[in-house]
C-alpha cells in the first residue's frame, strides 16, 4: 500500500492537501520573505552618498594657467583603506574672472575611457593615458584616442581663501563628478 503512494505522480500527491500542508507552505513563504528581504537589502543595497569637502591648498598658491597634481586622503574611505585611499586631482588656476574671483579647473585623474590614471605633460600641454593612449588638452577636453568625452570635472569652492574640492567618488560615464554635468 505504502509502495503505491510512493510511486504516485507528484501532482496527485500535491492535490491532497491538508490544513497542515497549507500552513507549512504559508509559513515557508513567510520565512522566505522575512529572510529574503533583508538579505537582498544587505547584498544589493547601496549606501546614500555623503558629501565631504577636502582642502587641496590655499587658493593663491596655484599659479595662473599652470596644472598641478594635488593628492589627499579621500574622506569617502574606510578606516582600513590605507594608502589606497590616497586620491589625486589635477588643479589648474584659470585666473580671476570679471568679479576678481579665481576660477579653477579640477579634474579627476581617471581617464574617461576606462578609468586609467592620466599623466600631465606641461611641455606639450597634454594629459596622456598609459592604457589605450587617450589624450586630453589642458582644459580637459578630449584631444585624441578612444575616450568618448573629456576628463571628469570635480566640484570645487573657495572657502576663506582655501581651495576645496568635493571628495570624488570613482567617476564613470553615467556617474560623473559634477552636478551640472549630470543634468546635461
Amino acid at each position, binding site marked *: 500500500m505504502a509502495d503505491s503512494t510512493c510511486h504516485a505522480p507528484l501532482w496527485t500527491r500535491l492535490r491532497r492537501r491538508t490544513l497542515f500542508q497549507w500552513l507549512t507552505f504559508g509559513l515557508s513563504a513567510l520565512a522566505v520573505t522575512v529572510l529574503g528581504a533583508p538579505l537582498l537589502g544587505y547584498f544589493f543595497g547601496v549606501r546614500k552618498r555623503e558629501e565631504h569637502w577636502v582642502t587641496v591648498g590655499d587658493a593663491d598658491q596655484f599659479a595662473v594657467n599652470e596644472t598641478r597634481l594635488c593628492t589627499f586622503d*579621500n574622506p569617502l574611505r574606510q578606516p582600513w*583603506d590605507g594608502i*589606497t*585611499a590616497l586620491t589625486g586631482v589635477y588643479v589648474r588656476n584659470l585666473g580671476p574672472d570679471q568679479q576678481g574671483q579665481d576660477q579653477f579647473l579640477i579634474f579627476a585623474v581617471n581617464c574617461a575611457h*576606462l578609468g*586609467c590614471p592620466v599623466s600631465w605633460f606641461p611641455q*606639450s600641454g597634454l594629459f596622456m593615458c598609459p592604457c589605450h*593612449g587617450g589624450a586630453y588638452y589642458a582644459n580637459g577636453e578630449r584631444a585624441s584616442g578612444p575616450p568618448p568625452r573629456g576628463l571628469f570635472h570635480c566640484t570645487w569652492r573657495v572657502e576663506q581663501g582655501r581651495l576645496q574640492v568635493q571628495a570624488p567618488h570613482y567617476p*564613470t560615464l553615467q*556617474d560623473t563628478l559634477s552636478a551640472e554635468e549630470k543634468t546635461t
Partner: protein
Amino acid sequence: MRRTLHAIGAWFEARLCLGNSLWPMLTHPVPKSIAGPMGWWYVFGSASMTLLMLQIVTGIGLALVYVPAADKAYDSLLYLNYVQPLGWFLRALHYYAGSGMVVMLLVHMTQVFLHGSYKYPRELTWVVGVFLLILTMGMFFTGQILRWDPDAYWGLAVGGSMAGRVPGAGPWIVELMLGGPVIGGNSLSRFFTLHVFVIPALLLSLLAVHLWLVIKKGISAPPQPGKIVDPKTYDAEYERELSTGVPFLGEAILKDLFFSALVVVVVVALAAVLGPKGPTAPPDPTLGGANPRPEWPFLWLFGLLSLSPGWAETFIILVFPVLLILGLFSVPFVSNRGERAPSKRPVAVLAVVVLFTIFGTLTYQGVTAPWSPEMTAWSGQPVPVNIVRQSSPRQLQGALVFQNKNCRNCHALEGTGGRRGPDLTLVGSRLTADQLIDQVSNGTPGGGNMPAYGSQIGPDEMSALVDFLTSLRPAGQPAVGTPASHTLATDRP
C-alpha cells in the same frame, strides 16, 4: 594482523556500502581504444582537475597568511614572499597552477570540440564545461585583484568603467562591484569573498555535475571517420562498444595519472624557477608611472578594445562577451549528430584554426600594446645620434622640440619610442613641410589619433621642428614635394 585489517574494512563496508556504489563508478567500462594510444587525447580534463586540487591546497595555504584588508594586503604579500618559509613558493605555485589550469581547460575543450565529443548525448557535459571555463576565468580576474598592487587597483578601475557603461544600471553595478563610492577595502573584501567562497563553491558544484555526466553518459569513443552519431541509434551502439570495454580504474586511468604527474612537475618547476608574481608596487593610486596591464587570459580583450573603433566599444565590452559565451553554449545544439572525426569536419577544424589565430594575435597585440604611449620616451630615449650627425643647428633645435613636446611618447625614431603613431625615421620622404605643419598644428582631423599641437608650439619651434622632420629621409633623397623628388618618384619603374 591481516585478518584484523580485513575485519575493520568489512565493518566500514557494511555501513558505507561503497562496494555497490562508488566501486562500480570507478570501474565503469570505457571504450577499449582509450586504453590504447588514442587515450592520450583524454588526459587534459583530468589534468585540469588535478591543477584545481592544487589550487585549493595552495589557496588554503595562502589564506593562512594573507590579510584581505586594503591597508595590510600588500604587506602580507611581501611577508609571504620574503619572510614566511616557502611562502614565495606557494604564491608562485598558485599563480602557475592557475595559469596551467586555464591552458589545460582550453586544450581539453579544443580536443572535445575537434573530436565532436560534445555531440549527443553529451551536450549538457559541454554546457557545464563552458560554465567551468567562465568560472575559472572569474577566479583569474578576482585572484589578480587580491594581489593588491597598482595592477589590481587599476584593474578594478577598468572593470568598474566597463560595468559603468551598462545603460541605466551602470552606476549601481559599479557601486555594487566596488562595495562603495571609491576603490578600497570594501572592493578588496568583495573580490576576496568571490575568489575564496562564491566562485569555488560554484566551481566545485558544477565540477561534480560535470563528472556525474561523464560517468552517467560515458566517455566518448575516439572518433572514426564514417561512424555517424545518430541520437536514435547512438545509445545502443555505445552500449555495444562498452561490452568490450576496459575498466576506467585500470589501464585507462594510468595515462591520466602520468600526464597529471607531468603537469604537476612542470608547474612546480615553473614556480621554483620563475618565483612569485608581484606584487609590483604598493597600491598607492597617486604613484606616477602606473602602467596597468591585465593578466594574460584577458590580454586578448585588452587588444580587442584597443584596436576596435570607438563606436563599437560599448558593444564589445557589454554584448560581445555574452555573444561569445552564447556561441560556446550553442555548439552542441547547432550540431549534435553526424560525423565526429576531424578529417570529416573541415569547418570545425577551420573554426579552431581561425579562433586560435584571432585570439593569439590579439593576445600578442595585448602583450606589445603598440597603442599605448610610452610615457617616459620623451625624456628617457635620446634622438639617435646618427640621424642628427649632419643636422644644421636649426634642425638640432627641432630635434629638441620633438623630444620636449613629448612627440617621442607616440612616435618612434629608428624603432625606439612609442608606437601609437607612425615611426618618423623617414617621415621626410613621405610628407612635405606644409603637410607636416598642418599635421602637427591640427592633429588628425575629427579628433583621431593625434592631438592638435597648434596652440602648444610657437612659430619658431614649429619651423625648427618641421626643418628637423623634413630632414629625416634616406641620404641623397631630396625632400618630398621638390621638383627633383617628383622626377624621382615618376621615374621609378
